């Protein structure tokens, strides 16, 4: 119990701060904070897959697209409750993730990364193929739009639930199996862990998280889903978020999500040498800087601070 006390206290502090935030911020900043919550869910999901199970994915934007379109289509065509569409996005992406996890059994390392990259490129093309159903380039519009405050509440409630879920999954047998797969597949098999089960499971869970993030992402775009929102850059942003967070830790995720959620907005107001590409320059150099200073991401930083405090 004593060991867990700091964790519980910091959870309460973070939770309290998040609950109080909307009362102190302007509407625009609440919107930005909601954006951070959305990336929190996505980065958390990728961290389960990449950080804990050691499977690289550059394709999580594709799962976000599936989740986002689920929300948009269900709301437009059937006026489904938006929260319900998030649950559907979770379920659908879980199944799709399991299916995508199957090739992961045969591929590893850079080959798996390439395969998921193909996913990131190809999935956003599907709405163009089935434009009657998925709106094509004209997009799909939810029947209801939400306020910044609603979005903020939904994003961080989802974050909290999924964070606890991730913690429950990772602390027990499944989490141990994931880590064993990451550290050495041969050793894991020798210890009786069934690789196919755990690898596909990790993909499924991770994709389901991305699905919820995608669902929220579409709501943040005034409920408008359109292929170009889910480009390759989105997948890369999630990966950058996970790297900045520090792989294999739940605590760094907050910092990683804030990094990718806020930096584009903040850096667009930095007047960089009169260039149209100022935002990209700032984002890129910030990534380089963080990777130089914190090779283990913010999780590494927290661990270091903890050691420092104890010493």
């Amino acid at each position: 119990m004593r060991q867990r006390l700091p964790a519980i206290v910091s959870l309460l502090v973070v939770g309290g701060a998040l609950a109080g935030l909307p009362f102190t911020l302007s509407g625009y900043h609440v919107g930005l904070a909601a954006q951070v919550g959305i990336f929190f869910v996505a980065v958390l999901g990728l961290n389960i897959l990449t950080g804990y199970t050691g499977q690289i994915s550059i394709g999580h934007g594709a799962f976000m697209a599936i989740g986002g379109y689920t929300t948009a289509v269900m709301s437009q065509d059937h006026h489904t409750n938006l929260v319900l569409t998030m649950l559907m996005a979770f379920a659908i992406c879980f199944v799709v993730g399991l299916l995508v996890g199957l090739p992961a059994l045969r591929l590893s390392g850079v080959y798996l990364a390439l395969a998921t990259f193909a996913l990131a490129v190809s999935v956003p093309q599907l709405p163009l193929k089935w434009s009657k159903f998925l709106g094509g380039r004209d997009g799909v519009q939810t029947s209801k739009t939400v306020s910044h405050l609603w979005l903020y509440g939904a994003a961080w409630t989802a974050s909290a639930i999924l964070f606890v879920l991730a913690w429950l999954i990772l602390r027990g047998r499944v989490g141990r199996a994931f880590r064993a797969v990451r550290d050495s597949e041969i050793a894991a098999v020798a210890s009786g862990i069934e690789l196919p089960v755990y690898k596909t499971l990790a993909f499924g869970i991770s994709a389901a998280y991305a699905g919820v993030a995608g669902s929220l992402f579409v709501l943040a775009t005034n409920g408008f889903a359109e292929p170009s929102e889910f480009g390759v850059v989105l997948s890369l942003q999630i990966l950058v978020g996970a790297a900045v967070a520090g792989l294999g830790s739940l605590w760094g995720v907050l910092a990683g999500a804030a990094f990718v959620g806020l930096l584009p907005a903040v850096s667009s107001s930095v007047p960089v040498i009169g260039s149209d590409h100022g935002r990209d320059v700032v984002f890129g150099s910030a990534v380089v800087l963080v990777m130089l200073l914190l090779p283990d991401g913010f999780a590494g930083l927290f661990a270091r601070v903890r050691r420092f405090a104890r010493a």
Partner: protein
Amino acid sequence: MAVHRWKLGALLCAVLATAAVASTAAASHSSSTPGVSKKQIVIGGTFPFTGPASLYKTIPAAEQAYYAYVNARGGVFHRKIKDIALDDQYDPSQTVPQTQKLVEQDHVFAVVGSLGTAPILSTWGYLNQRKIPQVLVATGDAFWGNCVHHACDGSTKPWTLGWQPTYPGEAKIYAQYILANKASAKIGVIYQNDAYGKNYLAGLKTGLGSHANQIVDTESYNVGDSAQVIAAHIVALRAHGADTLAIFATPTPTIQSLVAKTLIGWNPLTFVNNVSANRLFELAAASNGADLDGIISTAYLASPTTQANLPGMKLAKSIIHKYAPALDQSLAEGDGNIIYGLAVGWTFVDGLQHAGKNLTRPGLMKALRTMNETKNPFVYPGMSVQTSKKRTFPMEQLKLEKWSGGKTGDWHAFGKIYNGIH
């Protein structure tokens, strides 16, 4: 340990710097209408400065040049116009936060001239809900005047207004030309697989009426398709026996189509839509080997090259030279998008003047919905920008134009002015 402290220090500096930037004070506004003070009117818009549609970035630059010119002459009712143009890369997921920033952070009076169909569709609900003018949007889809899009449930959006002629209306003119000049034409169409391309195709079919069966083949491409894919579509159109080609595409695929048809030795009667009929783009096609003579398009703006002696074009040249000298060269080569930006700026300032000294958002909308501009110096001579209760498309006139002069040629307008295009 010392090394770690150094790293921590550096990180802390980075965090503090970020926080300092983030907390730059929001603009204060004293008057009751956001963005309007005694001395200033703050407006904004989103544009593709980078990304796949960045060819359009001269439009916001020209608009800002025009506002600078107006400001230098005292502004509108002694208010200077401040225009905040943000980059959205033609991507709705960036248009939304950027537009929210304009509204909630910069407290703009109106969103003016934002570019692209999907970006407008992603933000018009938000802006109409808050009763913020989203005016003179840079897209010719018919939604803005006569809403048929599923997103607006059959009702129009009162705070959203277009400017340029609609795409279906333009396509109808090509149909009329075909019926009058080549009645037995076998028509092949290449179009973009989205609302933009389909609007054009639908307009062409409506215009052809009972002759719509003369369309022997339609080929659609997706945004981002390679030149090879475009070329394959052109080959297919020819194989279907078409002797007339309509290209309803954005600039890059248009250039690729023109090059492809020349390379396969095909010489049909060719139509290029107005968006791609910018001399700069045709010169690019010609330098890649396209044979351009005789291709037909439409115009509603004065030409900075063939009509350089018009007072409006002289004015354009002097404004650009003084306030946006970086655009001098592309204007000299005939970049119609610069003229477009100036013309839109002119309409907006005209609207502000008619809205009166006591500027409000409903006042601006009323002024822009009852426009009667016969003197906009940047539109084609003889055309006017008008709106009324019954007329929701500000620009409803077009003139046909034809390319001649080969690799160093230009567009030359011909025939009558077509009215009532929508």
